């Protein structure tokens, strides 16, 4: 059993989970599809956890032993894992399964892109990454990113649902009426960002601590650092929007979506389009 085989099965399970959630949206009389979506997602999560552990072990067999968080491929796989993890936690706590239909596509896209478009070889760790800070920094950042991905999915649902609620009540039988109410979605959005914001803050702080330890400066306005701060500003604005007149609801949802777009740019765009200190693809 190799990790790459398990990763491939995981990708298929995420695909199946997403399709089941879509089916749950269309066919709302049967709760079977929603449950199937959740269980498949949890199965995939478990399998992916084993696969990541296995890849970690394989790296030791190759004599370059390090946590599988060292390049673009490994980070995208880990990102998918964290998205399903955060979704799973929200699902277990609040039981609004159908948000899976808007969250699983992110996880699936990550896995599909990593396995169809990237080299998956295990490489040795460059000197700059040989530190325990790698683990703390990457894990906190990606859990934060994942919570923002979930919040983005929920915000898209919110905007659709809110539009539907504002429009006439005539088309009651559409798919949108299976969504949770806009009040519930707004609350879930806030809950997801309440998980993501502290984690992003920790991610930035561990990054600063590592930079200070390795380079002697905790902040040097490197594009990666600056973009992480941009993301932090946007979600700080989101948190204040909830107590500001005129910003509650739609504008807050848009902030959440823009925040995730900035997150993705911070994660991928900076490495692929801009130059800087953070050029390991992670």
């Amino acid at each position, binding site marked *: 059993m190799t990790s790459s085989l398990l990763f491939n099965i995981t990708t298929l399970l995420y695909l199946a989970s997403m399709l089941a959630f879509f089916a749950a949206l269309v066919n709302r009389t049967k709760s079977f599809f929603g449950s199937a979506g959740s269980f498949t997602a949890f199965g995939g999560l478990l399998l992916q956890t084993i696969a990541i552990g296995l890849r970690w072990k394989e790296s030791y067999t190759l004599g*370059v032993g390090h946590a599988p968080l060292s390049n673009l491929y490994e980070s995208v796989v880990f990102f998918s894992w964290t998205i399903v993890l955060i979704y799973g936690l929200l699902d277990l706590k609040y039981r609004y399964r159908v948000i899976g239909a808007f969250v699983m596509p992110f996880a699936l896209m990550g896995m599909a892109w990593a396995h169809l478009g990237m080299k998956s070889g295990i*490489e*040795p760790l*460059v*000197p*700059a990454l*040989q*530190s325990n*800070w790698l683990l703390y920094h990457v894990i906190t950042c990606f859990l934060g990113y994942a919570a923002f991905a979930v919040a983005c999915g929920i915000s898209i649902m919110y905007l659709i649902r809110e539009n539907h609620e504002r429009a006439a009540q005539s088309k009651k039988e559409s798919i949108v009426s299976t969504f949770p109410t806009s009040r519930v979605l707004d609350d879930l959005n806030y809950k997801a960002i*309440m998980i993501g*914001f*502290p984690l992003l*803050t*920790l991610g930035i*702080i561990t990054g*600063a*601590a590592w930079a*200070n*330890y*390795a*380079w*002697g*400066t*905790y*902040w040097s*306005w490197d*594009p990666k650092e*600056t*973009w992480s*701060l*941009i993301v932090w*500003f*946007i979600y*700080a*604005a989101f948190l*204040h*929007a909830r*107590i*500001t*007149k005129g*910003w509650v609801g739609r504008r807050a949802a848009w902030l959440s979506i823009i925040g995730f777009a*900035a997150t993705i740019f911070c994660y991928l765009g*900076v490495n692929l389009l*801009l130059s800087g200190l953070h050029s390991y693809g992670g």
Partner: protein
Amino acid sequence: MTTNEKSWPQSIRDFFCSLKLTMFLLITLAVISIIGTIIPQGSPPPEYLQTISQNKLKLYQTLGFFDMYHSWWFILLLSLLCINLIACSIKRLPHIWQTITQPVLVMSDGLEKTLSSRTMFITNGDSSTLRDRIAAVLKAEFADPVITIDGGAFHLFAQKAPWSRLAVYAVHLSVLVIFIGAIIGSLFGYKGYVNIIEGQTISNVMSRTDKEIDLGFALRCEQFSVAKYPNGAPKEFKSIITVLENGRPVPDYTNVRVIVNDPLTYKGITFYQSSYGNAGDYFFTVSDVSGKEGATFKVDRNSSVTLPDGSSMHIIEETDDVSTFAPALSGPAVQVEIHDQRGGAEKVIVYANHPELNIQHAKEHSGGLVLQYKGSQKRMYTGLQVAKDPGVWVVWLGCLLMVVGIYVAFFMSHRRIWVRVENGTITIGGNASKNQAGFQLFMEQLVTKFKKQLPLEDNK
């Protein structure tokens, strides 16, 4: 935002206290920060400057775009953010402080109407017995209540985590603390670098602003080495460093290993492995195109040498194995830059194992001098980043305060419960500063527990 009736100071205060200003500043900071990630900061490379027009260059320089995070307008926005959060905190803090230190002990009818959770039921029995039983349940399940007698009724009040209301202000304070740490660092610290050749001792370093700084002690580089993985990728850059005081090695700082991610700190100054190179001599021969062995000369990394035709030459880059750049070739090679007397300059690669390429190059160029590379005498130098930042601990303190503050602000809630016992009627009310749904559930369970302890009609 302002009305005619408001006085000047009042409208200024309202402006700085407003959440709309907060939203404006956060979003503006997010948007304009993008500029500095697209335009290179510091001293932009010449390749970049060639891609933009002169007018654009002037505009960027005037606006401070090449060092935008230290420009007056960026600092102004950060300062406004600080003033905004101080003003908001000053406005709201006294009220919050009163809620915490002087809790409302009696649930009046007015208060009762504002509470999110209310229950009332009728029981019988003596008021003081009811009071004691309710107090016992509250103490066991929630918190020790304060009991007051008012208007012929007993009032019980219990609360949990009132101080969690301060967490938001702790987060705001932490932002200020981090800024203070950064200011201390920029006033009393410095960043610099130093190159030390193996065996050499230095006591001065260059700051980023090209000022020489006396360390007050000396550093000797004993050795520098690079380890590689089997595939040729670098595995470790290692300097062996000794700290000297008055020319004598300091016992615990002798032969210290300094690698990437593992710096050396002595007397508040930290040295980081950053770069390396060869400071030794490079050997060449020079002849005409006939290809016969010519005269030998040497040049070191930091100086230039004059060639027989009057042009000068210096080393730019070296490699022990040119095949990593050009797979068909092999052996050592150097890239040199030759300045001729007319002021022209060209970059040339001179090979050790490929004399024919060196001759071919000479033939194609008017100079006609044939250079052959004969290898180098290795004398490695290590490049160390040097940093002194007395403000860094203040920054970490601010970060700690921020993380703890955010955690408490998001996940802990000030929960209050009032109970009124009046002629066999029990009224229970409560509210929570966060997580209303969870609190509602807790209240329902609490009421069930009260009922079990009280002589209700249905209990009989």
